[in-house]
């Protein structure tokens, strides 16, 4: 994300995981500096596993490819413990203050999530592929869609070997619904998926339609509707009247997620850790790279059917969840000619 003020352009990177990622960010910043000759450009790195010497070396080499007047205005700044890391060379004090504000803002709005279980994401993706009748998928595609390495994909497939069909072109598909692996995933889902519950504290709760309209107006491209409403989109006969809560699925492939939108959605929604308290809204976090959201004609984003199924189990709607699961399995068998 790039922010700009009178004197500086800042490219913020919440996570930086590869040299390619770094090169992309530096190129984007350098191009912005071409058009704005008076400004300093900062790549503000909030979190990275790459070492500082490596990053500085990459910056040095990158600068050699740039015009000198642009190269001298390009800097990398690291955030450390909520502040700018000490080694800031000759960065002007005013620019440092601006960067500190950005770091502070980022910290205020960033909510940390549990580390994602990428093997589970591989499982979910394969189930989605099966219930949607989309056929085989290669390991490489799975790596890209989930955002993990080859080993994670291989391990995940090995663990559900019994349900997997391997094809000659190195692609895989499911033979049937992997009930055993699904059961294991469900058993730990509440802990691993960081689902957050929100209760109404106003005594005047907004209707779900109202909350959906508000969400639509906020026009956030990383939130989809799941749960009962999402499941009914696939299976209108689902035996439930109304929705017991609004399930929202947030695409959160990074370590942190910004939940500021909840206040704009409705200030009366307060996070609760009491699972017995009636929740008005549940937030689920989708950690893979491809969220598998589907956008309808009016712009609303919808979660995929497997995510909706998980949401139903999470809401303890066991009977409806089993019915929906049976519906998805029957549809899958029909679509896959099994």
């Amino acid at each position, binding site marked *: 994300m790039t922010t700009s003020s009178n004197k500086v352009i800042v490219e913020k990177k919440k996570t930086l995981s590869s040299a390619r990622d770094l090169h992309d960010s530096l190129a984007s910043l350098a191009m912005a500096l071409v058009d704005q000759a008076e400004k300093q450009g900062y790549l503000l790195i909030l979190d990275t596993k790459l070492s500082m010497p490596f990053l500085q070396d990459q910056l040095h080499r990158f600068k050699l490819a740039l015009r000198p007047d642009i190269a001298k205005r390009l800097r990398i700044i690291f955030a450390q413990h909520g502040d700018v890391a000490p080694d800031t060379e000759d960065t002007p004090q005013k620019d440092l203050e601006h960067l500190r504000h950005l770091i502070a803002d980022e910290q205020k709005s960033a909510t940390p999530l549990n580390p994602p279980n990428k093997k589970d994401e591989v499982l979910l993706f394969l189930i989605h592929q099966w219930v949607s009748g989309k056929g085989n998928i290669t390991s490489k595609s799975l790596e890209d869609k989930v955002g993990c390495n080859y080993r994670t994909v291989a391990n995940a497939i090995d663990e559900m070997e019994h349900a997997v069909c391997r094809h000659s072109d190195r692609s895989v598909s499911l033979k049937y619904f992997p009930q055993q692996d699904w059961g294991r995933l469900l058993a730990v889902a509440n802990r691993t998926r960081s689902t957050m519950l929100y209760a109404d*504290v*106003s*005594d*005047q*709760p*907004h*209707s779900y339609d*109202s909350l959906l*309209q508000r969400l639509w107006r906020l026009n956030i491209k990383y939130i989809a509707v799941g749960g009962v409403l999402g499941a009914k989109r696939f299976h209108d006969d689902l035996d439930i009247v109304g929705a017991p809560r609004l399930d929202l699925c947030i695409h959160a492939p990074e370590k942190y997620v910004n939940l500021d939108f909840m*206040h*704009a959605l*409705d*200030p*009366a929604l307060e996070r609760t850790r009491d699972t017995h308290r009636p929740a008005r809204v549940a937030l689920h976090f989708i950690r893979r790279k491809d969220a598998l959201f589907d956008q309808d004609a009016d712009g609303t984003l919808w979660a995929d059917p497997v995510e909706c199924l998980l949401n139903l189990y999470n809401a303890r709607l066991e009977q409806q969840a089993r019915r929906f699961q049976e519906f998805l399995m029957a549809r899958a068998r029909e679509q896959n000619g099994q």
Partner: protein
Amino acid sequence: MASSKSISELISPREVLSNIAKAVPSDCHDKIVVIGSLAVGYHYFQDQSEMAVRTKDADCLLFPRNAAAQAGISITEKLLKNKWHFREDDKWGQPGDSQTPDNKLPAVRLNPPSRAEWFIELLAEPESSSDRAQHWMRIETKYGHFGLPSFGFLSLANYKPIRTDLGIYIARPEMMALANLLEHPTIGPDRMSGGFANRLDIKRSNKDIGRVLAITRLAIGLDGDALLAWPEFWYEALQKRFPDEYQLLIPQVGQGLRALLGSEQNLEQALYTCTNGLLASRPPTLKQLYIAGERLLVDAIEQLEAEVTQ
């Protein structure tokens, strides 16, 4: 739910408005807008005869400005002729005369015959939107001289008022809320003269912004999305009533409310005025009142502010 009979000093908005409509000359009906908590109560409780509000004054704004004096004279003379009487007041209990300076004239404050729990008060639409100081319009009746006060943001109260089935108008609750918000860009030190429901420490700002929060809760109670329609209406009213100033006024709309929400002491006073006023029948908690304020900011005030910052 409390009834008007079970809580003393609570009065029925419909009953009071009905009394006013019957008592004033019928040719003045279309020149009267009832404002204040009675108008709010009538708007939100009219289908619930058991719902009541705690107030003493039935504020009637006379409009348009050029017809206010004549309407004021007709109403005052008819009420006094029909045994309405001056409200007991050591200082303002008698009419003035031609020698009384404008700013010393008594307002028209009259109790209905044999009743002392509420009184009618007449006000006039301000002459100019830019001059928001208090002014008195002299009216000369056969009973003596009176003044019709006008001040502040009263001109918002008669913006597209709602005509009741009684013939007289009531102010739109959202317009009264806007007027109150603009009236208090800060929490001023002034306290309610005479106190409020046995408390002498209540600040006027907390009482008036508290009314805004009460209107907010009542509006949401009827329609959860009611506040979303307010910013467009507010913007239109501010543009029409304050064509030279509206862009400066808009950033001030939320200042007093934000100050109130930032102070538990002020919020507690606002809560007290609500639970002893418009929300007496269903009192909220401090947190619920705070949430009403936050919702007002998110749904209405921030949307209005966005109109001038875009």
